[in-house]
């Protein structure tokens, strides 16, 4: 089990398969405002975030932002 300190969570999180949790979480934090609503990823443990990411993004970080974009019909996993 891999634990790393996350500057966004300000605590140690279980990062599971994530190789670079800061980069992944920072990316999602930048997408935290969804139509004016706060999507607070800090409330999820690393395992949930990892699972959610990989389901959505097929392990391709560059596609993540696009995959999360509400206008993208390919968002459906």
């Amino acid at each position: 089990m891999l634990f790393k300190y996350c500057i966004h969570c300000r605590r140690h999180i279980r990062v599971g398969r994530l190789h670079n949790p800061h980069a992944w979480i920072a990316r999602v934090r930048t997408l935290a405002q969804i139509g004016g609503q706060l999507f607070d990823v800090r409330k999820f443990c690393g395992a949930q975030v990892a699972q959610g990411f990989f389901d959505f993004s097929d392990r391709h970080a560059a596609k993540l932002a696009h995959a999360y974009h509400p206008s993208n019909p390919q968002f459906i996993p």
Partner: protein
Amino acid sequence: MKTRRQFLGQASCAAVSSIPILSTLLNLRLAGSVAAVTAPAAGQYRALVCIFQSGGNDSFNMLTPYSGASSTAASAFAEYTASRSDLALGQAQLTEIHPTNTPGRTFGVHGGMPQLAALFESGNAAFVANVGTLIEPVLNRTQVAQATKRLPLGLYSHSDQIEQWQTSVPHSRSGVGWAGKMADLIKSLNATQTVSMNISTDGSNVWQTGVTDAEYAVDPGNDNDPTGGAVALSGYAQDYAANPFVDATSGAIDSQLALAYTNLLQQTFQKKRRSARDAYALYSTATAGALPGNVVFPNTGVGRQLRQIAKAIAGRTALGAVRQTFFVNRGGWDHHSNTLALQAAMLPEIDAALGAFWTQLGLLGVQPNVTIFSASDFGRTLTSNSQGSDHAWGGNAYVVGGSVLGRKIYGSYPSLAVNPDSGAEVNPLDTGRGRLIPTTSCDQFFAEMALWLGVPASSLPLILPNIGNFYAGSGAPLGFLA
């Protein structure tokens, strides 16, 4: 001190409690206190507007001595001039104000803020002097130097002090703000939660982030199009117009939103998107009407933000809101150099927007129902670093509103004397270079407004965990709100 588990339990209870239960709590609080802030009647609208001046406003040039003596000098203005040297404003650059609670003394408001000065003189504005982050009272620089009192984490640091002004938790690092906690407790007073009780015109912020609630961020507009409004999901339109692309995209998004997910993160993400879709529809409808009176808001960042807030207040009935908070942010106050010129350019922006907003509130008939207050990271050093000032601690804030017991300076306006590098101490509050220890805590400042908004006094420690170090729980914490 409540544990986190206790707080979560109480917050959850509050969130699902009925209005009559909360009203009873409010009445009990009223019965047990004398001369306290008047809690709102059932159904009465009240709103707080925070104007955050991020960067650290040099607020001892926003509110200065003008005439009379300080505790350490026969002429407070001469003392101010000596301490500030090349940062000192002349009396010609100030608007003299006449507080009713500082006998023998008058003060000066920066000349770039004539409307704030006029609001003060008319009894609709007040100042809170030398307010800052504190865990417990700190009386002198010896207590700081010898660490006999607990001090806020990260003093003089932007990120820490911004966070602490917004959380009122100076003893640890927290991402939950005191307005967010208020929403956790009292948002159920609002008829619907489709649009949050907490609305931001500057995106995400800590102040309005609670345990169970978070801000709803709206777009204040921009230079080219100051209209602004609710933020739609990209490509989504409520009315499936004739545009087939919009129709197809909206249909695709609706089909996505209908899906169920097993992963908690995915579930929450979908829930947020559904909330965004519904909030957009409600907020857009509620704020569609024109504001009365053709008030001209300046096309500046603060002007556009306050105009958007006026629209949300005008649409409060449609939004189902009897309690709201609003967050405005104007950055760029970290004036390590060129302080006088930069303040002369920026304070008028705040002042003009504030004046238009006040006029608009009058036309909406809600001046007694809205309280505006300023906040900033910290005050700045009284001494100059050569035409600039550096990060410090206590500073001055203004409050504006029809319920403000105005034309007064609350707290204690400190001596602006700066201790010499060697020799006898002249000002025990000066920790060096004119970094003043606050004589009023943020907790006192915020507690007054929390009570006014309808938070029961018994719940204040849930919002402001150190309030017990500054306020006994009866009467008004500072007394600036009726």
